């Protein structure tokens, strides 16, 4: 479904991602792990189109998309729940979610997805009309994920969804990720610091180090690898 071929991304003189390739099969969960500054977020931004690539190609459904604008890629079925939440602080929770369905004009569909999201995150129901900026960190994370889901994407990019969430919610999110993937067959790229969680959830995983893929394989295999255990699981 998604095929990233040898992309490089630079911030001015600094190359954050170099010659990186990865692919996501239909209905798969792919995890990206790596230390701070490894280039995970940058990769996500390159896929969604917030950051232009300086080399390489990106294919989605067999079509080349690295020249398309972000809104166009969203229209094709990619959505991002960004790192650091980035909710619209002065809009209500409901409006945040509705903005998420901007490219999804069908009202009935919209309602259905909304109910689904309220089902995943009951907390958001009671906060519906509160300004998103005054929510607690965890609540904002729920809004950010919900907002991405509202676009009913076929490929969901989750950048550190467990960041700042209570363990009980992290479990919840993990469950929801699996559920979404199973119910709708949505493909997911998951960037996580919580490597154990990420590797447990995914089919395929990539380990990024200083902007390049250092290791890749089945999640379960990596979980068992000595190197990963030492470097990313702290064991």
């Amino acid at each position: 479904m998604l095929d990233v071929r040898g992309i490089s991304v630079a911030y001015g003189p600094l190359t954050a991602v170099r010659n990186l390739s990865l692919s996501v099969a239909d209905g798969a969960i792919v995890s990206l792990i790596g230390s701070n500054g490894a280039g995970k977020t940058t990769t996500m931004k390159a896929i969604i189109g917030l950051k232009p690539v300086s080399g390489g190609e990106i294919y989605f459904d067999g079509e080349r998309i690295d020249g398309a604008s972000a809104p166009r890629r969203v229209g094709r079925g990619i959505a991002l729940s960004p790192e650091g939440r980035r909710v619209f602080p002065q809009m209500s929770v409901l409006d945040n979610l509705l903005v998420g369905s901007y490219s999804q004009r069908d009202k009935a569909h919209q309602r259905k997805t909304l109910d689904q999201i309220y089902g995943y995150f009951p907390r958001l129901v009671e906060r519906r009309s509160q300004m998103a900026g005054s929510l607690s960190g965890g609540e904002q994370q729920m809004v950010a994920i919900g907002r991405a889901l509202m676009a009913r994407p076929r490929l969901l990019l989750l950048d550190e969804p467990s960041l700042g969430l209570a363990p009980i919610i992290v479990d919840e999110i993990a469950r929801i990720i699996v559920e979404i993937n199973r119910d709708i067959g949505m493909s997911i790229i998951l960037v996580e610091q919580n490597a154990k969680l990420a590797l447990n959830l995914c089919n395929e995983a990539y380990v990024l180090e200083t902007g390049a893929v250092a290791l890749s394989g089945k999640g379960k295999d990596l979980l068992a690898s000595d190197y990963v255990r030492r470097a990313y699981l702290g064991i």
Partner: protein
Amino acid sequence: MNPPTTKPMSYVGIAVAVGLAVLLPWFAPNQFYVHLATVGCINLMLVLGLAIIARAGQLSMGHGGFALVGGYVSALLSMKGWPPLLTLFIAAVVAAVIAAALGWIILRLRGVYFVLVAFAFSQIAVLLALDMSSITGGANGLVGVPPISIFGYVLRAKPQFYPFALVCALTTLLLTWLLYRSPLGTMMAATAENQRLTESSGIDTHRVQVIAFTVGSGIAGFAGALSTHYLRFISPDSYTFWESVSYLTMLVVGGRDGVLGPVVGVVVLTPLPELLRSTEGLQHIIYGAVLVLCLMFVPNGLASLIQTWRSRQRVATTGAARVAEEVP
């Protein structure tokens, strides 16, 4: 912090610039240039005052109001017989005290709200000057403001006044530079960039901003008074909303980061209307276009061009080092 890196080259540059400014009366083709230079000195003080306020993260659209207050205070006192040399400083103090009082109340406001209140203050100052005609002469203003005299030497004509204005401007420039280098200057910059974090580093950001506002407005008061004694006239129209905007314009076009920006802004924009005068009718359109183009293509101010040019080499070397470092 970022201490302005002063290399021998810069010292030479500064010395040449100051030397040219000092010698201007001798090589200027006529006194019109001396007049323009004097106006430039006064503008520079006003813009530096504004730059100090901006350094702490606030924008004063009422800067003209403080110049107006300073101008009237100095004019009225000196017309009562006080020596102008003294009333200049009283004007600065009065403007500063008003700014401190106002600042204490309004600086809790952020951004545009602060801008609005400062703007409202300057409007009130103009309206009061208009309405209290028994004191201020109303809309007609005050005529016959005495000239400045230093130990009996009267600064009546342009060549006499210019050196004094230049000394005032250079002193302000030096003090501003010192301020920017000091811890207080660093606190101002920090406050501007992230007030909450600065507050959490133990710095009373409210006070830092009040001080910046007070000092900047005091300078405006002084400059307003200086200009009044130069023109020997002041009226409510002397410092309106448009003056406040034009100082801001000089600051933004010149650049906000150091003391160089205000200098460049003043040097470019003070004579610009004169250069355009021959285009009768089109001059304001061209002026507006120059403004827009400057902001479009040199958004950080013209001074940033000079800085970029100066540090190009430095950036190139560190840039290379950075890339090298990234390679695993």
